[in-house]
């Protein structure tokens, strides 16, 4: 196995771990099923995806990741295919398109990009589900009870986990940067 495949395997395992963490975190400590209105949705996988797409330069590579993990997420967690499957690649392409604006990735940039990506993703899911009548929540309730708490929680987690996660994803992509 050459180093390129090794790095790709590493990236896939990184995203997969984050994928499972989403479900487990929701199950283990954000499991408010009969108390409270607030819905906190852990989006650790999106963190991994954002960090990787800030570092990987190959657009086709990004698109493949987006579609594969999107389909997995939809099928395993939602039972409806077409939410993450479409939104995730769009986010990744978007980040790839605009990342030339940033000279060097630092916590401020990445935090704000993650914020935008999360808002886009949650709003996209809400709009699509509303269209398909999977929910009857109105917009204000969505912003107050779902989007707000989710953003807050995830921003804090991103802030806390930034240094290890960023170093890890640097290391996972490094090889490609040197060979450019």
């Amino acid at each position, binding site marked *: 196995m050459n180093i390129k495949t090794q790095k790709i395997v590493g990236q896939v395992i990184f995203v*997969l771990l984050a994928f*499972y*963490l*989403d*479900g*487990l*975190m*929701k*199950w*283990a400590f954000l*499991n*408010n*099923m*009969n*108390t*409270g*209105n607030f*819905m906190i*949705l*852990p*989006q650790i996988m999106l963190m991994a995806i954002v960090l990787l797409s800030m570092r990987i330069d190959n657009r086709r590579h990004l698109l493949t990741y987006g579609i594969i993990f999107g*389909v*997995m997420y939809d*099928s*395993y*967690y*939602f*039972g*409806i*295919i*077409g*939410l993450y*499957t*479409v939104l995730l690649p*769009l986010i990744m392409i978007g980040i790839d398109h605009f990342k030339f604006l940033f000279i060097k990735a630092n916590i401020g940039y990445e935090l704000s990009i993650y914020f935008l990506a999360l808002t886009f993703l949650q709003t996209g*899911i809400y709009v*699509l*589900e509303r269209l*398909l*009548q*999977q*929910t*009857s*929540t109105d917009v204000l309730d969505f912003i107050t009870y*779902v989007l707000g708490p989710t953003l807050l929680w995830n921003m804090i987690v991103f802030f806390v986990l930034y240094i290890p996660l960023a170093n890890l994803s640097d290391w996972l992509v490094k090889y490609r940067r040197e060979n450019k």
Partner: protein
Amino acid sequence: MQKFFSNKKLIILMVILIVTFGLLAVTVNIRDNKDTPPAVQQVGNDVVSVVGGVFAYPTNALKNVSSEFSDLYNTYTENKHLKARIDELSQNKVKLQVVQEENKKLKEELKLDATLTDYSTVNASVLSRSPSSWQSYLTINRGSTSGLKKNMPVMSGKGLIGRIIEVDKISSKVELISTNNELNDKFASEIMGDNNNSITGVVSRYDSDSGKLVMENVNDTKSIKKGQRVMTSGLGGVTPRGLYIGKVYGIKKDNYGMTNSVYITPAAELRNFTVVTIIKSQVSGER
């Protein structure tokens, strides 16, 4: 026309839109109509769930430990309370045994094979919960190979928690009773009255403001009292009779003053459990 088709970005945008809505519409419809998702999706979900099990077991163990600690904290007061009830319980147990025996004999006499109260159970452990606001699903590690089917009711230790919505080969999804969904999640239920007159209705919605289940289409609200027990009535065929849902909390009129809805405190504390029980009814009703 030439110019339109030469614009690559527009075409890509169009394709994306078509694919999105196509996929969404197809999967939503398939989920509502057919018994199971397509085979490819089943296999995919199973593979993901098997790997997910590796992470889920330590998490569940941790969760059990933490709930044991909180149990330990309450032990003293709980013990006092339980001691008072233990005599009553053993009495009831003996009585239940006798009655069950009698019931069995009477059924044989009448040549009844299975009634609405007969069911068998399958235990499963929970792998994860969907990080989604409107699809509150649990993924469990049993599927069609264990005989699960769509729409079977699911209990945790104390009471009803939901219903199976998607069955794969070795994993399936449970939709929680607390989902506020217009289409699914309706349980035919009854309130146990004082003098054995049962009041029937349908538990149809979840009030997320108060955390109570709402029972509608109630035929008689006069004799309902706070604290009466609510259970499934077995009408409709899929759910057997006698699964405990919760206790009556109060009665509220709807906005137009036309119908009364009964608010129920759910018995299942939808928080501290790692194992669920799936109920397989032995009477198959009309589909």
